[in-house]
C-alpha cells in the first residue's frame, strides 16, 4: 500500500514534469523550424509558475463550481491514465482486466471537462469553442476506438489465455510478432490513424479548432486565468505524454535493456532513456512537425475527414487485422 502511494506520487509529479519538458522541447523545435530562436526549454515551468501566482478570475456569468471544477477534472483524468500506462521499464501502477477500455474513457474526459468548463464560463467565444470541442471529440473517438479494439481482439486471438484488454499484457506482447502480411498492413494503417488522432486529441494545429486563437481568442479557455489556466496547461502537457505513451504501449512496447543483456538498475536506466527517446520521436512526428506544417482546418472539414476518410482507413485496418486473425493463424 505504501509502495502504491509513493508510486502514484512519483508518477504524478514525474508525469507533470515530463509533460512540461516535452512541451518546452516541442516549442523550441517548432521555433527552430520557423527560423526563430524560441523560448528556453524551461519556459513552460515559468509560465505555470507565473499563472499560479496570478489572480483566478471567475467571470460574472459563469457557474462558479462547474467553472472551477472542470480544470481539476481534466487534470485528474489524464493523471489517472498515467497510472495505467506502462512507462519506461516499469509495469503500470494499476492494471486490471479491462483497463484499456477505462483508458479510452478517461482520455475522453479532459475534452468533456473542457467543454463543460467552456459552457459554464458564459462567454460566447467559450460556448462556440465548447461546441467545437464536442464535435471534435465525436469525430476522433471512432477511429481511436477502432484501432484499439482491433489490436486487442487480434492479441486475444493470438494468445487466447491472456486478458487482452489489459495494457500490461499488450505491452508485454508486441503485436507485430503475431501478425501475418495482411495484419501487418492493417496495423500500419492503424498506427497512421493513431498518429493523426493524437494531434486532434491534444487540440494542436491543424486541429486546435476549439481554441483557435485568431478566431475565438482562445475558445474554451478564453475566460480561464490564474490557477485554473495553469491546471489546464498542465493537463494539456500531461495529455501529450499520455497519448504518446499509449501509442508506444500499443504498438512499440519494445525495450532495449533486454536486448543489450542488461539487468537490474542498469537495464532500468537504459529502458527509461529508450522510452523517453521513443516518446520524443512520437511527439516530434505527431505534434511538432504536423503543427508546424499545416494550417488550421475548419470544424466541418475536421468532422468530415475524421468521420469519412479516417474512419474508413481505421475500419480497413480493423478488417485487415480480423481477416488476418481468421485466416493466417
Amino acid at each position, binding site marked *: 500500500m505504501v509502495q502504491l502511494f509513493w508510486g502514484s506520487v512519483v508518477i504524478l509529479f514525474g508525469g507533470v514534469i515530463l509533460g512540461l519538458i516535452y512541451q518546452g522541447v516541442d516549442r523550441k523545435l517548432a521555433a527552430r*523550424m*520557423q*527560423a*526563430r530562436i524560441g523560448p528556453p526549454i524551461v519556459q513552460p515551468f515559468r509560465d505555470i509558475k507565473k499563472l499560479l501566482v496570478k489572480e483566478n478570475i471567475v467571470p460574472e456569468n459563469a457557474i462558479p463550481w462547474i467553472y472551477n471544477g472542470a480544470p481539476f477534472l481534466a487534470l485528474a483524468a489524464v493523471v489517472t491514465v498515467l497510472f495505467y500506462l506502462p512507462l519506461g521499464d516499469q509495469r503500470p501502477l494499476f492494471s486490471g482486466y479491462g483497463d484499456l477500455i477505462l483508458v479510452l474513457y478517461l482520455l475522453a474526459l479532459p475534452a468533456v471537462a473542457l467543454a463543460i468548463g467552456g459552457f459554464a464560463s458564459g462567454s*460566447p*467565444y467559450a460556448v*462556440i469553442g465548447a461546441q467545437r470541442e464536442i464535435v471534435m471529440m465525436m469525430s476522433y473517438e471512432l477511429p481511436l476506438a477502432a484501432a484499439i479494439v482491433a489490436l486487442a481482439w487480434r492479441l486475444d486471438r493470438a494468445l487466447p489465455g491472456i486478458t487482452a484488454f489489459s495494457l500490461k499484457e499488450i505491452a508485454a506482447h508486441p503485436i507485430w510478432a503475431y501478425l501475418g502480411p495482411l495484419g501487418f498492413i492493417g496495423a500500419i494503417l492503424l498506427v497512421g490513424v493513431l498518429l493523426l488522432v493524437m494531434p486532434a486529441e491534444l487540440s494542436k*494545429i*491543424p486541429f*486546435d*479548432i476549439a481554441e*483557435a*486563437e*485568431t*478566431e*475565438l*481568442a482562445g475558445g474554451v479557455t478564453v475566460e480561464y486565468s490564474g490557477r485554473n489556466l495553469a491546471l489546464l496547461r498542465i493537463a494539456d502537457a500531461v495529455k501529450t505524454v499520455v497519448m504518446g505513451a499509449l501509442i508506444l504501449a500499443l504498438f512499440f512496447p519494445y525495450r532495449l535493456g533486454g536486448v543489450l543483456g542488461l539487468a537490474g538498475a542498469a537495464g532500468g536506466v537504459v529502458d527509461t532513456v529508450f522510452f523517453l527517446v521513443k516518446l520524443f520521436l512520437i511527439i516530434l512526428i505527431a505534434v511538432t512537425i504536423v503543427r*508546424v*506544417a*499545416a*494550417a*488550421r*482546418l*475548419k*470544424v*466541418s*472539414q475536421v468532422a468530415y475527414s475524421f468521420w469519412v476518410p479516417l474512419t474508413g482507413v481505421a475500419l480497413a485496418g480493423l478488417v485487415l487485422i480480423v481477416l488476418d486473425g481468421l485466416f493466417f493463424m
Partner: protein
Amino acid sequence: MARVTDERTYYTIPIGPTHPSLKEPLQFAFDLEGERVVDVEIKPGWNHRGVEVLGMKRNPLQTLYLAERICGICSVSHLIAFSRAVENALGIPVPPRAEYIRVIIAELERIHSHILWAGVAAHELGFDTLLHLTWRVREQVMDILELLTGNRVNYALVTIGGVRRDITKEQEPLVRQALRYYKDLLEMLVDAFLHDPTIELRTRDVGVLSYKDALELMAVGPTARASGVKKDIRVDQPYLAYPALELSPITPDLFRPEIHGDVYDKIIVRLLEIEQAIGLIEQALAKMPEGEIGHATKEEMTELLVQIKEREGEGIGRHEAPRGELFHYIRFQADSEIPILWKVKCPTYSNLMSYRPMFQGAQIADIPIIIACIDPCIACMDRVIVRRDGREEVWTAEQLLAKSWEKTRRLKG
C-alpha cells in the same frame, strides 16, 4: 447575447475592437446560426486621429510626413498621392528621373506590403510557419528600402515636385540583387501558398465577392481584381513613370482558368503582383534617364514654399497603393500656404462595403481570413479626431493618468 428577429433567434458574437485576428481596431457584430454567419454589422472608427484636421493647420511640406504616417505599411503611397495632389493643384512639374525613382520605391513597397499580407493571412489561417517565413524574407526588401531612403518604414523620400534622394550607381546592383532574391523566392511562395492543400481547403470558395458586387460596392485594388474587375490606376490613368512601363492589371485567371472571387483568388492576385512589381522595377531601372531629381536643395525648398503660398487651385492625387486606390484631394487658396481642404480616401474605406457579401454564408472559422483578405488598414481609414467617451465628457491625457494612479493606489490598499 442572442438577438431575436421576426421568427428566428440568432446568436450574436462581437469581434473587435480588440481581437487576436485584428491587428487594428475595428468592430464586427456577427449574427450566427450555428457556425454559419447570417449577417454582419461593421463599426469602424476606433482609431480616429484627426489627421485631416491637422493637415489643414500646417503647410504641405509639413503635412507630407503627417500623410506618410497615416499608415505604416503604405507610407510612400500616401506620400505619392499627397504630393501628386499638391503638384496637380499648383502645377508643379516633376523631373522624369524623380518619377522613375518614385515608381521604384512604390513597387518595392508593394512587394513589402504583399509579402506582409501573405504572412498575416497565413497567421489567420493558423499557419504560423508561413507567417515566420514570409516575414523573414520581407527583411530583404526592407533593407533595400532602408538603403535607398534612410529608414525601414517611413521612407520620407518623396517630396512635392520630386524626390529627396537619388538612386546612385552603387545602389543599383544591390537593388537588382534583391530583385533576383525575390524572383527565386517567388516560386517557393507560390508553392507554399497556392499548392498547399490545407490553404486551398481553407480559402477556396470562402469569402466570395461576385463581379457585380465588386463593381457596385466600389471595391478597389486586389480585392476588386480578384473578382475580375479590371481597376488599376497604373494602367487606366497612368501617372509617375507608369505610362512608359509595360503592365496590365493582374486578375486570377492568369493562374487558374476561372475566376471565383474568393480568398484564394486574392492570394493569387497578390502573389502575381509581387512578380509584376519585380518586373516593373527592372524596367524602371533600365529606362531611368539621368538628370534632376527635384526640389532637394535648400534654395529649391524655399522657393517651393513661396510657390505654395502664392498659387491657388485644387487637385486630385490618385495612386494604386498595394491595397488599392488611394485618393487625396487638396485645395489651396492664394496667399496661404495652408490648404483649405484636404480629403484622404484610403483603399480600406472603399473595400469596407465589400465585407458584407463576403461574410454572408461564411463560417466562424472563415471570419479571420475574410477580415484579412481585403488587407484592411484601419489606421488609414479612421482619421478624424474627437476624444470623448459615451458620457459626453472629455478626458485629457493628464486626467486619465491621474485616474489610473488613483486606481493603482486603491488596489494597493
